């Protein structure tokens, strides 16, 4: 089979579409994008030679519609389809339809997808091929000794439909909800249960199957996960003895060979560092999100390799013996999500997205440096219809330490405004001793509570001061009256000006004096001065504003620290978010409104939608008695199901929503009126 691709359609969106287009451009292949309505303005659409609209927004209406994608290929004259990852990438029916339409499918044979698509079947197949696997457990016969166990969706991926169960009572609930989520996300409700390995590492092996055999392209560690979704990945996996690594590669080769796999794929293993044993998890029959780290250390373009296999050409001019890795690469995934609020996906306008000193975008690094694969740019709108990943940032250096340092510096200096991201958490990870010593496991993010860490108290105090001054000066610049009057000026001083923010749900109050207010004999009287015991004598050396940005240089203890304060105001033009950037990193502060209309206050016991989404199921009726922790309803957002539970014992009062209803973040879902024990009749 040999067919040269001339025009390739990417049945995907965002950064992965851009990634594939980049290789296509280098190879001279024309490109076609498909896009939903919400994505029409994103960079990947503009980058493609041709673009075809898929009407609607939800994945089911757009990127999951095989018929529309094939029609788009026909209308745009594409002769090949690359599925990217997610969406239709592991849909054998789609792959088959692509081939039936006479197009080139840049992916494995549909049969391979099917074989690996069912995790239950794949495990059986792998066990037969001699690949180490975990035992299967029957939910009905699971006993306390088997705990903890993991419930997984057979068709799942990315943590969807996955539940860790630590007590027997919650097992059936977990199985049910995993089934629901899997059915909703993948159209297949099959789930299975296996022992859960505590402190396991996620280690995976990149393979490319060719007619001449399986090429093993090294390994990666992807242990740093939140809610079973990878956040930080690196290649090679650190701390493996050569024998273990060789065995791992051998198992991966056997896995791919067992199904005569063609194209790029990843064999994922659960690695128990304590015993140095590994177990087959699954094989992803597609390009992985984290492929850039492998590209860096092996000097290979995996998309090019995929295209080569699809075109029937040799991948590389060498045999299938192990390939030497060069240096170390680390990738972080920037998500529009709030780690402090249980990783709630965030939406809105990404006012600024700039990463300094990037060497390469969307392609393999040819020399140690920094690579950015971003699906969004400054000014783009981040919606809630799809995965919340904004970009991947990859650093490649001779050693792991150097790669981490480089990545940390770039993340710190990145300018990301308008939408809350996990950037600060990523920085915390990159500075964490356990990460630095490669003491990794999939529970690290949850165990170490990296969501709550921020800069040291003094840095935070100075940043909040800079934000308060920035806000005051930006507001003053918009004023039409008394424009030249120093902010917060008083001729009779009763108290300092106070500005109140919230930072990660915590209230931060900044007390400060504007220029020429108070302190007659203070040498810094003409500057903004902070009133704070922790940072006594801190004052603003210089402040300037431009558009929605203020540059505030704060001096404390003889050291000058420049801060950039970026303002993102809400529709009222008063309340909003301030992103403060300093040499140590970033801090996001939200204003606290000075006044609340009593009519807007929410009744006690109200359950608010934690994020925009759809109500999947309502478990209670108005008037029903509920106990604390009882599920009230299930909300699906970002393809994840969230159970909203009763906060206390009580009676369901208001229940304004029903199944299938779309709700906005903060909308009242139900009101549980607490029953007070003392009011109950004896």
């Amino acid at each position, binding site marked *: 089979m040999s067919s040269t691709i001339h025009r390739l359609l990417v049945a995907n969106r965002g950064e992965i579409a851009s990634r594939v287009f980049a290789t296509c451009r280098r190879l001279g292949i024309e490109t076609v994008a498909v896009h939903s309505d919400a994505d029409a303005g994103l960079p990947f659409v503009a980058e493609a030679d041709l673009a075809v609209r898929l009407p609607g927004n939800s994945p089911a209406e757009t990127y999951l519609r095989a018929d529309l994608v094939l029609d788009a290929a026909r209308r745009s004259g594409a002769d090949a389809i690359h599925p990217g990852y997610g969406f239709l990438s592991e849909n054998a029916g789609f792959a088959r339809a692509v081939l039936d339409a006479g197009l080139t499918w840049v992916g494995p044979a549909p049969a391979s997808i099917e074989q690996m698509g069912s995790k239950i079947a794949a495990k059986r197949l792998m066990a037969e091929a001699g690949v180490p696997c975990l035992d299967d457990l029957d939910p009905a016969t699971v006993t306390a000794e088997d705990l903890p166990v993991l419930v997984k969706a057979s068709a799942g991926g990315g943590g969807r439909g996955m539940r860790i169960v630590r007590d027997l009572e919650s097992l059936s609930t977990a199985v049910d909800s995993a089934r629901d989520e899997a059915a909703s996300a993948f159209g297949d409700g099959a789930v299975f249960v296996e022992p859960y390995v505590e402190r396991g590492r996620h280690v995976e092996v990149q393979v490319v199957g060719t007619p001449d055999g399986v090429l093993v392209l090294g390994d990666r560690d992807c242990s740093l996960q939140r809610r079973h979704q990878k956040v930080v990945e690196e290649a090679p996996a650190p701390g493996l003895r050569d024998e273990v690594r060789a065995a791992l590669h051998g198992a991966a080769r056997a896995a791919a060979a067992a199904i005569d796999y063609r194209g790029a794929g990843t064999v994922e293993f659960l690695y128990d560092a304590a015993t140095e044993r590994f177990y087959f998890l699954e094989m992803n029959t597609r390009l992985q999100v984290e492929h850039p780290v492998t590209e860096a250390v092996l000097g290979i373009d995996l998309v090019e390799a995929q295209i080569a296999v699809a075109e029937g050409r040799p991948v590389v001019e060498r045999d299938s013996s192990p390939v030497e890795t060069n240096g170390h690469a680390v990738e972080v995934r920037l998500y529009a999500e709030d780690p402090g609020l249980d990783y709630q996906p965030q939406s809105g306008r990404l006012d600024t997205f700039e990463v300094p000193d990037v060497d390469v975008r969307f392609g393999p690094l040819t020399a140690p440096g920094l690579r950015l694969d971003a699906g969004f740019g400054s000014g783009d709108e981040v919606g809630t219809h799809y995965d919340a990943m904004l970009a991947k940032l990859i650093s490649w250096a001779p050693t792991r330490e150097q790669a981490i340092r480089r990545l940390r510096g770039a993340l710190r200096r990145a300018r990301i405004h308008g939408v809350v991201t996990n950037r600060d958490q990523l920085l915390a990870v990159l500075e964490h001793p356990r990460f630095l010593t490669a003491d990794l496991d999939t529970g690290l993010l949850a165990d170490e509570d990296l969501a709550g860490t921020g800069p040291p108290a003094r840095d935070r105090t100075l940043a909040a001061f800079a934000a308060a001054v920035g806000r005051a000066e930006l507001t003053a610049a918009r004023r039409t009256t008394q*424009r030249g009057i*120093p*902010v917060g000026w008083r001729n009779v001083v*009763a108290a300092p000006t106070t500005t109140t923010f919230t930072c990660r749900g915590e209230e931060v109050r900044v007390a400060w004096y504007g220029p020429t207010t108070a302190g007659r004999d203070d040498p810094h009287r003409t500057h903004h001065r902070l009133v704070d015991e922790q940072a006594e004598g801190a004052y603003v050396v210089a402040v300037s504003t431009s558009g929605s940005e203020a540059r505030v240089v704060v001096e404390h203890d003889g050291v000058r620290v420049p801060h950039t304060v970026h303002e993102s105001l809400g529709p009222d033009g008063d309340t909003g978010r301030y992103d403060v950037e300093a040499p140590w990193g970033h801090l996001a502060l939200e204003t606290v409104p000075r*006044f609340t209309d009593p009519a807007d206050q929410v009744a006690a016991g109200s359950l608010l939608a934690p994020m925009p989404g759809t109500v999947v199921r309502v478990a209670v009726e108005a008037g029903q008695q509920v106990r604390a922790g009882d599920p009230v309803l299930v909300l699906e957002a970002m393809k994840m199901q969230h159970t909203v539970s009763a906060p206390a014992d009580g009676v369901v009062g208001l229940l304004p929503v029903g199944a299938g209803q779309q709700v906005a973040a903060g909308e009242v879902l139900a009101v549980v009126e607490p029953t007070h024990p003392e009011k109950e009749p004896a």
Partner: protein
Amino acid sequence: MSNREAMLTKLAELDAEHATAVAGGGERSVARHRARGKLLPRERIELLVDEGSAFLELSPLAGWGSDFTVGASVVTGIGVVEGVPCLITAHDPTVKGGASNPWTVKKIFRANQIAEENDLPIISLVESGGADLPTQKEIFIPGGRLFRDLTRASARKQPTIALVFGNSTAGGAYVPGMSDYTVMVKEQAKVFLGGPPLVKMATGEEADDESLGGAEMHARTSGLADYLAVDEHDAIRIGRRIVARLNRSSRAAGAPAYAEPDADPEGLLDLIPSDLKEPFDPREVIARICDGVSPTNRVAFDEFKPLYGSSLVTGWARLHGHPIGVLANAQGVLFSEEAQKATQFIQLANQSDTPLLFLHNTTGYMVGREYEQGGIIKHGSQMINAVSNSKVPHLTVIMGASYGAGNYGMNGRAYDPRFLFTWPSAKSAVMGPAQLAGVLSIVARAAAEAKGQPFDEEGDAQMRAFIEASVEEQSLPFFLSGMLYDDGVIDPRDTRTVLGICLSVIAQTQVEGTDRFGVFRM
């Protein structure tokens, strides 16, 4: 002691006096007020004005030197609410329950005058137990003007808003009654003509506070309250929304771009001599308070008639982009030339509708045979005529000396400048204390001689010392400010900011000069 040290000492004294005003009724009284969950008057104002905006407090030293607490149990000032400059008054309920004494009344009159002249909305933050009864004779009759002022303001379409936080009874009930908008705080506001004891005495009726004048009652039954606020924050929130809907935000006129002064205002502390006998060059002051050179202001100060009448500096400048004409004393004494120069300059400002700034450092009009014969009275009268009848807004800053008719000619308090502020270095009286004592001594000596009595030298020395000391005390800024003879004592370095606020307030109304003056005696 250097000039700077001397000025800083005076400023420290000023801060101490301001702190007394801020402390209100004292720690215990403040604690009791707070314990009721209530805010202090300045805290209410802080919430009312736009975040980060300035608040220019007026007459903070009212009542200084009297038996009443400094500040006169009320806070008045100019703040920006929802982008609209407003005149704000707030009773201080920690001082004798916010009761009005004679100085309170004078301070509110002055605030209302400022609101009237500059067309500012008036926001009253009400919580007052009414008149301080022992002083009723000084309050009752003139105090009626308070309510007259409110309704006349309304008649001029100058909005009036009352936010009632507590007691507003008897005469005080007419403040919400006379206001365009009234907000009352639930379970706090109490507005009635007569309370339960008075009603019992007058009619025998038994009634409680709430049914006579509670916020709920006024909001639901009498209709005196337009809005019922759940708490103090809510009342202020509603007050801000009322101002936002006054359709006044469009009046804010942006001044053109400007540069900060060419010289550092900090230098004013070094410039002003601690001994007022030492003259200083007012151009140095102008360079520190007026706009510096910029593309829209190519020369910072265009001096007018620089070679004539050189002990009065006149010229054109800008302050925060607002054009102004400046008259500043240079050598203390005003001669005929200076008086004539001032007269012409005031007329010119009226021709070009330009506000005027008077910077005082004058010992008065020159006396002596030569000058009387040269017509100093005629010329001084011309200047006072021009000042009195000029229709452009006037601003006055008393930097140093302000003696005799010089105070009048330079637009002293009696000549109704829109705003008048004093530096801590100022002194103002009919003449210098030593001169005054000396004059009295000469007169006494002459009287003794005429009667052929021996002159009591020792008694004279005592009398001179006493007169000198008391006149000295009465010519100092705190005393004069306590008498409401200015709108506040300010740090010289804040002069630009204070005048900037005043000019932005003045810009709310049209500046229109006159061509009608009294008869100029030629």
